Every structure is written in C-alpha cells, then in structure tokens.
C-alpha cells in the first residue's frame, strides 16, 4: 500500500503542549519502533491522553514535531492505518440507536472514502472483525444493550476492521471485569506477535500487563522513563517515585500475576493499583 521507510511507527521530537497557561506536556522525546507493544503509564492528569491526542492530530503541540511512519502528522494521510480506541468509548452516548454491525462498519468509512459505498468485500471484513472479538452472536443488537466489556470489544473490532498497522488504546479496560481484561490482553498480545501490529496501551495500571508488553514509557508532564519491560520491572520503585515526585511505598501482593503493587498515602493507590478489581 504505502512505503514506510521509517523503522519507527511514531517519533515525538521535543513536543510541548499546554491548555492555556497550564503546561501539560513538556519537552517529550519518544521514539516507538514498529512492532513494539508499548505501555504508556502515568498518574491521572499526567498528560497521557493529551499526548495521544497530539499523536492523532486532534491536538496541535505548541512546540516540537510528531511523525507517524516517517511523515509529520500534518502531512500524514493514511489514517486508516491507525486504529484508535478511546477512553470515552466507555462513556459514549449509550442510547445511540446503532447496531454492533453498524458501529464496526464505521471503522471502514475513512478507508473507503468520500462518495464511495461499502461493497461485499467490506461487509465480509466487518463480519470477520466482529467474530474475531467474539461478538458474532450480537451482530444486530443495539450497542446500548450490551455490557461495558462487550461494548469495548465492539470498539476494538471497529479499530481492527481497517487492518491498522498501529493500534492505540486509551485506558481500554476501565469498567471491564477482571476476567475479560485478561482475555483482552491476550488478544492484543496475539495481534502484536502474529500480525506484527504496533500497539500503544495507555493505562495507570501497569502491574497487570507487564507480561504482555515489550516496552514501557512513564509520563508525568515529562517523560520519566522509556525502555524495555524487564528494565522497568527491575527499577520499578525508582521509576515510580521519580514519576510521582514524593515518597511512595511499594507493597507486594500475591495476586495471580504476582506483580508489585503500589501504595501511597491514599490518592495514588487508586491510580496505580488494580483499581477495578
């Protein structure tokens, strides 16, 4: 389709962003190689979603430059190669009268383009994507009648239907039960390993997913860490205290994953711990 000469899916050079007077992102440098599975972690209000919006061209940085597959965001045209599942997917207008089939079809609208209609091949792709996330039985149900976890799977199917090279997920597991979360991560891992898809998962719950991701980036206004998952796990304490800027205790719980849990006075407990479980 397109020539991607750059080895990087995303290159962020010296990017700063502010809402009015408030600095949200400062001098971010981050290069994400194609084929990696990155966990982007940081406390609430650390600028994770803002950074994602900059990558997607929804926000324009005050300073710096972002490249997608070697092209600046302004010049980038292959948006159908980028799948995005937003945090808002959990709080969309759930009374919206649209079936699962209709919602997943939307994922092809950008690719099909203006003045063109979906053909048989497209329709088969929609069915495929719905089956891939295990929602085949619900194809003609209104999206509002599904549970939070099911809705999230529908939104993943919508992101996958256009065969993206890069999939960005912003807090996709909020409001999804623990068992579905695990299957969900396994599905992402499979996409990463088997299809070579580059994945970025924004989360404040890094503990639950260190066994699936290949890289970690820690963000709190500035980028505090970027490296392999092993390196992160070894230096987790340091990372987290530098990111939060004051003393935090790390407690180890013996959950099924046996990962470190972070405890703070109380505010950050919710943000780093397994808040949903």
């Amino acid at each position, binding site marked *: 389709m397109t020539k991607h000469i750059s080895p990087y899916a995303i290159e962020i050079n010296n990017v700063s962003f502010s809402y009015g007077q408030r600095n949200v992102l400062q001098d971010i440098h981050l290069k994400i190689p194609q084929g990696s599975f990155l966990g982007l972690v940081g406390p609430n209000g650390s600028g994770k979603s803002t950074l994602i919006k900059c990558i997607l061209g929804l926000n324009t940085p005050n300073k710096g430059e972002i490249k997608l597959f070697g092209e600046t965001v302004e010049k980038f045209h292959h948006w159908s190669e980028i799948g995005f599942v937003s945090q808002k997917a959990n709080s969309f207008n759930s009374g919206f*009268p649209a*079936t699962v089939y209709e919602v997943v079809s939307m994922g092809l609208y950008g690719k099909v383009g203006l003045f063109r209609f979906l053909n048989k091949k497209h329709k088969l792709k929609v069915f495929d994507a719905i089956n891939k996330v295990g929602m085949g039985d619900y194809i003609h149900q209104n999206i509002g009648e599904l549970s939070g976890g099911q809705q999230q799977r529908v939104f993943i199917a919508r992101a996958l239907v256009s065969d993206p090279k890069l999939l960005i997920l912003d807090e996709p597991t909020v409001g999804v039960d623990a068992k579905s979360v695990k299957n969900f991560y396994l599905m992402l891992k499979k996409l990463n390993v088997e299809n070579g898809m580059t994945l970025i998962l924004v989360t404040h719950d890094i503990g639950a997913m260190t066994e699936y991701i290949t890289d970690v980036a820690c963000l709190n206004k500035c980028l505090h860490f970027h490296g392999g998952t092993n390196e992160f796990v070894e230096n987790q304490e340091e990372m987290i205290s530098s990111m939060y800027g004051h003393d935090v205790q790390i407690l180890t719980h013996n959950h099924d994953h046996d990962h470190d849990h972070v405890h703070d006075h109380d505010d950050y407990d919710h943000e780093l711990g397994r808040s949903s479980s």
Partner: protein
Amino acid sequence: MIQVFFQYQFLTYTLYTGLMIGLIAPIIGVFLVVRRLSLISDALSHITLSGIAFSLLLGRHYIFFSTLNPIYMGMIFSVGGALFIEKLRNVYRYYKELAIPIILSAGIGIGVVFISLANGFNNDLFQYLFGSVVAIRQSDFELIRFITVIVIILFILFYKEWFYLSFDEDQAVVSGIPKKTLHVLFIVVVALVIAASMRIVGILLVSSLMTLPVAAAMRWAKGFKQMFFYSIVFAEVSVLLGLISAFHLELAPGGTIVMISVLILLVSILLTKKRTT
C-alpha cells in the same frame, strides 16, 4: 376523503409538498436528535420568520419583492442564521447550547420589528406561523421539490460520514473525515429543510416534524438505518392524516399534524414500556 386533494390543482400541490416534507424533515431530524441538536430547528425556524417578515415588508415598498415568494428570503435568513450558530458555538466553546437561545430570540425580535414596520399582522403572516392547506403555490411546490432532491442526494452521499460524526466525533476525525465541511453542509441542509417545511406546518411547529417522529422511532428501531425507516413512516402518516383532517375540519394543518405525531409518540411509548432510551 383524500380524493378532493386530486380534484383541485392547488390541493394536489399541498398533498405532494406535504409528502416531500414528511420525507426530508425526519431524515434530517434523526441526525439532529442523536447529536442532541434538536433545538436548533426551533432557532432556525424563528430566524426564517424574520426573513419572511422582511420580505413582506419589502413587498410593500418595492414591486419586485411583492411578486417574489417570501420563502426565498426566509431561506436566506435561515441559512445565514445556521452559519451564525456555528460561529457562536465556536465563540462559546464551553456553552455551546447558548447559540440556540441567542439566535431564537434574535429571530423573533427582528421578525417582530419588521412586522410592526409592515403595519402589523395580516392573513399572509398567520399562514406562515401555523401553516396552511390552501396557501401552497406552484412556486412553493417547485422549490420544495428541488430542495427534496438536493437533500436526498446529499443524504445518500454523506450518510456514512454524518453517521460516524454523530456517533463519535473524535474517532471520525481521526479516520480522516473532514468534520468542518460536512458539519457546515449539514447545518445548511437543516436550514433549507426548515424553510421548506414552514409552508405546511408553519414556523412555530416546524421542529415538530423533525423531532416527534424521531422520538417515536427511537422506541422501535434496532439500529440507525431503522431509525430512518420508522421516522419517515410516522412522519408521512402524520402529514397525510393531518392534511386531510385539517382540510375537512377547516383547521390549520400545523396543529393537526402535530397532534397526530404526538398521538403516535404516546402510543409508541405505551407499547414499548420496557425499553429505556
């Protein structure tokens, strides 16, 4: 009962005009309702009133305007008002709904001033306020036929983009859909449909044909496509029964059409008690 509409040329125009409006008003109404913009139709109908009053006023002083169908001026005001609403929605970014009462009161205010300058109410104006079975001229019919064709073509061409933008604006933008252009186009279409419908149901009740059938359809529809099907059926039934009873009982058709729409809505709510939308 309906035969009489085919016996007289002017009644035939009324019938066909009504049926065309029963088609395009709910089509546009579905998008307005799911985007939570249904009040825009009220604001635009009032600004249409100022345009009509302005045209009637000019008609007293200039020969050219006394022969010109006031609906043209109404349409110009309506489209202008629509574009101004868009402007205001950007000015008051955090209070977007403020644009609607601003345009609504400005519309009535300007309209009332023009009406008093033209020496008060007359029969013409009364017909514009509440609709009329007997006032439809050939020029109205031809103009509304033209608008209907335009609306249907745009609807078919941009169905998928408008659907996506209504469901999830951010995602639609990320997938490369030109939001601004399509939104302005949509709002201009809304303005045209309002100016067209005003002839039959009257300015004060224009919004009813865009919202009541859609509200009823929401109780029945599985999916977005079905929304259009049900809304159009309900609107056409209301228009048809409304026009016939208005003619035989010598009532203003706006009122009878609305009463039948309300009846359909109530029955729909009663028959679909279990659903929550």
